[in-house]
């Protein structure tokens, strides 16, 4: 059941390009009492790398204020990804990974425009169940994310998405390398 043979594929031998949407829940009361978080829309890029699967993610979601004492925020989250396949059976697999990224927030209310822009580091730990159907991959998105603001943001992501698998020809692999 647990395989090691597929842990490392030829670097850049294929790419997976996908989109997903996830419900975001923030655990910290100081945030939860002030803002509602909208669902996250994500773009995913993955490729086999020397020691696993590497990738990039872009997530978009907003902070909607619950009162006029605080401002609405938009957030765009850029991250890099390193994942390892921990389970593989026929067309089903589970990939576990780590995201390291930056959350960029922007105030949307003129009243709160003083130093309104902020970039903050975050880590996410993820588990991604996958079902392969031809060149398509249906996947689940389960993530725990910690954003390192002065008051930390702890969030859970729960969602689903679809990826398209493209095998890269040798000449493109050589070009990338």
């Amino acid at each position, binding site marked *: 059941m647990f395989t090691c043979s597929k842990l490392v594929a030829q670097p850049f031998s294929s790419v997976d390009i996908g989109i997903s949407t996830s419900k975001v829940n923030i655990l910290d009361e100081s945030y939860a009492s002030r803002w509602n978080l909208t669902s996250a829309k994500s773009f995913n890029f993955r490729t086999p790398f020397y020691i696993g699967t590497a990738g990039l993610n872009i997530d978009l979601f907003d902070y909607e204020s619950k009162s006029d004492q605080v401002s609405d925020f938009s957030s765009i989250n850029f991250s890099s990804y390193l994942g390892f396949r921990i389970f593989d059976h026929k067309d089903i697999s589970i990939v576990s990974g780590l995201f390291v990224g930056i959350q960029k927030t922007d105030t949307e209310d003129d009243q709160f425009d003083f130093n309104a822009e902020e*970039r903050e580091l975050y880590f996410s730990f993820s588990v991604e169940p996958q079902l392969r159907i031809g060149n398509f991959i249906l996947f689940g998105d389960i993530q725990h994310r910690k954003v390192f*603001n002065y008051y930390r943001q702890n969030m859970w992501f729960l969602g689903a998405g679809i990826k398209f698998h493209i095998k890269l020809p040798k000449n493109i692999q050589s070009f*990338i390398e």
Partner: protein
Amino acid sequence: MKTALTIYVFVQLFSLKGFSQEIILKPIENTTPYFSFEEWIYSNSNWGYDSYGLTNFEPHSSLFSGSLEAAPKVFINGSFYNSEWLTNDLETIPNYPIEIIDSVVIKQNSQFNRGFFTPNGSIEIFTKNTDRFLTLNKSLVNEINDPGPHLSSDLETVNIDAINYNESVIISYPEFLNSKFVYSRDRFSYTNRLVYDRELNYFRFNRASSRRPDGQPRMPRNIEQEFSLLNQINAGSFTINTRAFFIYSPERYTWYPLTGIEIPAKHKQFQVSGIIKPVNSSSFRQSQFTFSHSSADSLEGTTVPTYGIDETSLSHSSSFGFPTDNGQVSLHLNNNVIIWDDKVTGNTQDIHDANLIIGFQKNDIQNLKAIIGNHTLGLEYERKANQLLSYNISTTRRNLDGNGYNFNLWNNGLGFAHLNKENHTVTNNSNFINTYSISEINSGLSKKKYQLNGSFFLKHYWQYVHTDTDYRFKDSGLQLDSDITYSDLNNVGFVGYRFFAKYNPVPKTFLKTSFSGHLLRYGSEQFINSVRNLSYFLFSQSIQYRADENAVFEIQFRYVSPRDIIEFEPLENNPIFTTAHVRPIYLLNATAKMWVIDRSLALTLALRNLLNSTESYNTNGQYYNMSISVGASIALRKTS
């Protein structure tokens, strides 16, 4: 067995076999990104340093950090770089992107190097010979712990959107005068200047002292731009290397901790230098010309002047050699003119210095030099007894203002120097003399798999005159005044050490270790107190794993022992301001770097300072916070 191995290594290290005192840094070995080129050099060698800001690195080579006396001399492609401009003593090295660097050679011992006496060593920077290419770099450095969405709520503090935005452009175009153009821009904010204390509900220091018209704090962002143009021209039987360098800082905030005031100013420096050399051997060896103009100006747009200083210098040196039956006769001529102009006080000062050095060298074994100048008179004799040992005796009298002489006796293994140094600053218009000796044991060993380099040194000052020149605001208004503190000390000194090792124990894995510090300080209580900020040691260890030539991972650990910052001492008894000590710094960096498209695109992800606690947000004097840096470079053609 372990003891025997240790003894063997030390015996090898100090046996002077395979003698090597130089540390050579190669950018190809570099993975971890740095805030500046200076940080890369100081933290990859075993030079101790302090850093209170992100882009300022103060080398510890002499008694006091942040002093030009402590700074090593810098050479770029063989030509001397005039780092001593104005009072900007921290700007010692151009902030070159690492992509243009071939190697950096660090010599830490006192010696004559390229015609200059370098009592605190030298840093020689060599740029790459390249094909035509264009490289763009962009990186972002940030810290954790900013308020983020809470900025309008109970934390009442200020976001720094990012600490440093760094961009650079390099254009190499060999077809036109073998040109390299380098532009780099840093936009950085000082961190931890705002210290909001939750217990006192008070801003202890205000990193955002600048205000918007509506009264809201505004984050001052320092802007520093550097332009460099390097050319090599082949003109018949001569090659001409030229280097033009321009620093322009339209906004620069110098922060004064005691007052919490950030003084804005414009800084500019222009330096142009050229070396002409014959292609084939001839009596004429080379000539170098350097012109430099620098200014620091806060006069523009202000009704009351704070400061405005101009410095202009012109220097020239030429060398000739004449072979004879008994050896080589050489002539070296140099002259230097420096003019300072203080617009606020109206003071001007100038120095004219000219020297003729006549040398005789026999069979690479004996070297005799006589120095004759308008302020200098000297004699130097060097003899290499054998491959393992050489010695040097020199005596120089400098008489710039009726004072000063210089005497050296040293060799590459064990040395002694006795130096009088004259300093001239615009702000105090004074001369002062340090008379000290340096004893050093330097040795190293280079093998295929490892390089070891170590030194112990003793610096004894018979007379040490230290000045602190600071600026303060007069009570009557925003006019700059000089606040000068002299300390005149006798018979003081310290013992220090440096150790550096690189090794490649197993394939794909590379280790680098450095260790430096001071073992002992002695002298009067005043001296001991005054050098507390240098009582330190620095340990650095990095482990690099190259999974592939295009994928590298590196873990780096650094420890800097706690020091006191003298400037903060008056805050000890202040109930509002905290005393700022530089606490021990445990620094752990983790970096992953990969190259794709024939190494034309490089991506770097670095997490710095993983061991830092969140507590640092409420302190002052440290910038060490977790940061993330992403860089990319694109080359039109692969560099050689």
